């Protein structure tokens, strides 16, 4: 089985994000594999390790820079990596991103597709499901339990008040939720092996798309501006005797903060 794991390059969750002229400043920011995508890779590796003829592929769409993240994902133990590299990637909305990934999936072939339930940068939570729709595949999102037996997938997802159990045939798309598994650390041997494994970089042309299909041209949604959250004003310490400070506190909450 060809198991393809979709991986997005995202800023490290600990990175300090700054905005300059309405755009996110990327210098000095470390980029990592989207943490939710790691659950998908782990699940794919578990299928492979359970035995049978399986291959685990990593598929990424991003700029040239995303090659590093593709390789980091491969270091977890994948067999082959694919990057669709195009400068328009940051300007693509979920629809366009899914279009690119679906075209690449058609090119490389697939029997099963995993991805994270969302990317931790834009939190759109749409790409996996859109890919499934474009490829006319079954899908289940926000999955926290996965089983594969005799070409049939049985998954569980948390819904209000309980667990929903879904069965469907492969190929299908699963978007992964925290708790699905415990993603491994890459072994150092696998890190060393990445450079010896096949890594393919596609252009848009390679997957049958053109510049008109992507970026601002191909997207329904355009991000016009980023703004950092408003800085919180520093706290104020009210000093004095308890009787006075209590009165002052009530006055401030009523008249200044207007919360009581």
């Amino acid at each position: 089985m060809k198991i393809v794991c979709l991986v997005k390059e995202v800023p490290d969750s600990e990175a300090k994000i700054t905005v300059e002229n309405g755009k996110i400043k990327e210098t000095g920011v470390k980029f990592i594999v989207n943490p939710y995508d790691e659950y998908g890779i782990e699940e794919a590796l578990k299928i492979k390790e359970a035995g049978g003829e399986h291959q685990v592929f990593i598929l990424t769409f991003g700029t040239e820079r995303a090659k590093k993240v593709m390789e980091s994902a491969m270091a977890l133990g994948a067999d082959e990596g694919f990057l669709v590299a195009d400068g328009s990637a940051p300007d693509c909305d979920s629809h366009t991103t899914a279009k690119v990934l679906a075209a690449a999936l058609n090119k490389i072939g697939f029997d099963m597709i995993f991805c994270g339930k969302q990317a931790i940068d834009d939190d759109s939570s749409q790409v996996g499901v859109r890919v499934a729709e474009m490829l006319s595949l079954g899908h289940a999102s926000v999955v926290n339990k996965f089983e594969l037996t005799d070409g049939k997938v049985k998954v569980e997802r948390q819904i209000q008040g309980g667990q929903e159990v879904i069965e469907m045939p492969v190929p299908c798309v699963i978007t992964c939720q925290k708790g699905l598994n415990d993603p491994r650390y890459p072994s150092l041997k696998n890190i060393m092996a990445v450079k010896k494994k096949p890594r393919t970089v596609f252009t848009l042309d390679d997957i049958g798309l053109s510049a008109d299909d992507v970026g601002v041209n191909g997207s329904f949604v355009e991000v016009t501006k980023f703004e950092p959250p408003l800085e919180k004003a520093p706290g104020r310490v009210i000093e004095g005797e308890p009787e006075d400070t209590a009165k002052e506190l009530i006055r401030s909450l009523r008249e200044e903060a207007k919360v009581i």
Partner: protein
Amino acid sequence: MAFKAIDYYNIDELLGDSELLIRDTVRSLMEDKYQPAIAKHFNDGTCPLEIAKDLGELNAFGVNLEGYGCAGSSDTAYGLINQELERVDSALRSFSSVQTSLSMYPIHRWGSGEQKERYLPGMAKGEIIGCFGLTEPDHGSDPSGMKTTAQKTDSGYIINGSKMWITNGTIADIAVVWAKLDGEIRGFLVEKGTDGYTAPEIKNKFSLRASVTSELSFLDCEIPKENILPDAVGLKAPLSCLTQARYGIAWGVIGAAMACFDEALQYAQERIQFGKPIAAFQLQQEKFAYMATEITKMQLLCLRLGQLKDAGKATHTQVSMAKRNNVAEALKIAGMARGILGAAGIVDEYSAMRHACNLESVYTYEGTHDIHTLILGHDITGFKAYR
């Protein structure tokens, strides 16, 4: 606050992708699992023995060796692993140094094909733990005077003598022991449980409390003839193992220094005295300028030493320079950081004092600071001053 690794000269840009990934992987494991638990281990005087399995699963043991289940990384990557281990505690780095540089390395370099097949794959996985017996109660800096002997018999060798200050001795499955056979230093492999071999733990240490330190005792301990390292002859053999380990230490202590620097800086930026953070006072700033400069120099020394070692060109005297300088500076930085932390620095919520205690051992083991000074003095002037 999360740890922020000081990289004042953008040295990360000079490291390879796989080296960075290896470093970050070990850093994640350390932060997730070992950092939260280390202070308790230190206080209780216990070693987090699961480190064997965890580093084994990562292929971090023997990482810079080729074949036999080893990852075959660069020496620079091996150095970076040590840095991340020692950022948590010198005990963890010591565990890895002994396994990789002092136990696997001699078997890999001088062992027979059969010895390599028998031990190295299990050691790479952390399933077989090794130790290294060179130092004796009466022979530390002067190993050539060792009293431990090996006597040839029809079926093998009989070893008599004792070894002291042996990291991982009590828990080791296999000891690489150096002894004189007909007056010549040779290496022997002694398995745990061999009659006449015991390895009691040395207790009551103020330093490396999360590491097992032992005495090895051999009383008419008979080992089979296939347990001699066939190609290790003379003092050069154990000394070349020490060169490997010292190289790792030079990198490792950068981690300890970075940890001390980072926690002192975060504390000083938040600790308010006389109405402003103590980091705003000139006396503290001088310390931070000193620490940042010395850490950067330590990093640059190791980076270049790693490049030389990867090219097969590093000399043991270059390794001595890095070990000597980096340990002394790390020890100084740990003390400075403790001072900046004030009273808070004496409790186990902070790591600087634990690092300082550990680094006192690191200052002494693997060639004392003074011995490295004399090695350099000899190399630079042409005159031997240690004899």
